[in-house]
């Protein structure tokens, strides 16, 4: 049970951190921030790889592989699309400096 409590502690601390860390975000960054956070939860890929590697039946393996595919889509697509959005902001700063 101590392990459960340790995990619960981590959960509570992470919740506070997540809340505090973005509390000063400016409106123009709402969309990229949402998209970036979206990509971060794509790390469920780690869990998907774990369960897929332990599949005992063909059905379990297929379900696991679908999870791996979807999680990768979430993670990779999420980071790439966020970068595309943020690229625009950089171009803008350059042109306004010039």
């Amino acid at each position, binding site marked *: 049970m101590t392990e459960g409590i340790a995990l619960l502690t981590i959960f509570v601390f*992470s919740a506070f951190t997540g809340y505090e860390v973005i509390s000063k975000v400016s409106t123009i960054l709402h969309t990229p921030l949402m998209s970036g956070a979206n990509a971060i939860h794509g790390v469920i890929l780690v869990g998907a790889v*774990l*369960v897929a*590697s332990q599949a005992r039946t063909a059905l379990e393996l297929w379900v696991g592989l679908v999870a791996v595919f979807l999680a990768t889509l979430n993670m990779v697509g999420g980071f790439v699309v966020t970068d595309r959005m943020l690229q625009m902001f950089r171009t803008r700063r350059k042109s306004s400096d010039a």
Partner: protein
Amino acid sequence: MPEAVTNPPVWIQLGYLVAAVCFIVALKALSSPRTARVGNLVGAAGAVLAVVLIFFVTSTDNLWAILGAIVLGALVGVLAARRVAMTAMPQMVATFNGVGGAAAALVALLEVGEALGGEALGQVAAAFTVLIGGVSFSGSALTVGKLQDWLPARPIVVPRVQWVYGAALAVSLAAAVVVAVLGSTGFAIVLAALAVVLGVLLVLPVGGADVPIVISLLNAFTGLAVAASGYLLGNTLLLVAGTLVGAAGSLLTHLMAQAMGRSVTTILFGALLGGPTTLGTTTESTRPVKSASAEDVAVLLGYARRVIVVPGYGLAVAQAQHVLRELGDVLMARGIEVSYAIHPVAGRMPGHMNVLLAEANVPYEQQVEMSQINPEFKATDVALIVGANDVVNPAARKAYGSPIAGMPILEADQARAVVFLKRSMRPGFAGIENELIYDPKTTVLFGDAKDSLSQLVAAVEKL
């Protein structure tokens, strides 16, 4: 689960810690324009590290199949993310979020009954992951449908909505309890199906204008589902990453709702309580409006001293942001002061319009936020509204019971003259009429935004 998975070597755990710190740094950096892009890359680095590390602890069974699935997912992800038009960005984010939720639910389905050696809290986490992951999946799918116009954008209220909703919720929770107690995979599948129905019921009654907020909320949901799956698998990294996104996403949802003058509860449950989420209309009005030719509008603009442009989603749809900048340049060459008024939710998401204008190289100084530009409309000769509607609708100030009541708007109606560039008389995304269009000082130039703007550029140059 094998020992190496539940209790990995220290160096692996330290690697997880580094990845978790990467995610925290990424979120922090993403909330400031200067560091945002680097932040995203830091987040990506953390994610890659985490995935590489996991291959050191898993068994090598099915390794090639897993790598194949990853390559396929990465390929599809990169292609989709690269190819999607800037205008369809919100749908893309919603799609990625939905598949993430589905992945979490599938992981939990496979792990039900094996949680931390059958520990009670682990089963609760499994049930929670299946439920929330499923809701996030179908809810996101529905938001994509609404944004893509596959489904009507107006709120859809099923008959006896309170009962249907209440029943679905009660049955889902009961199933979740059964899963948590019995750890049965069969019931977990039933729960997943119920969660999908629940997600649909949750998003159906949400009006088009509120969809972005719901996407953000579902994003937080997926984060929580991932966190719960981390508890289930005894994996601290998943727990930390999921919780971070869950908490940050909840706050972000609240901030977005605030920017639109809405409350999250009204958006989600307004329809249930018979509140102000009234049914909008999508029919074209037949009331007379003052329409004019491009030449007339060019005269109005060309001899103004001050012009404020209000860009909206219609501009994005027509891909007219570049021509708009040309018009701005032509006007400025005549010594006219031009600025762009950016409503916090112009486009379809907060910050969406800034991205689009940045793509067209509109200088940063000319993009003015709502609170700063609103007092300036009084001293403005022409407010040029390009493909926007709801964000300048004065009904937001008055009509209680309107879907946009209380939403902060750009006070374009204070300008001396108002010009609408519109494709048709169809109302905006919120599905309500805009009185400003019928105002005597308003002129409407009908046509595709891109065509109209090119005509205006040519006409102003001839003046």
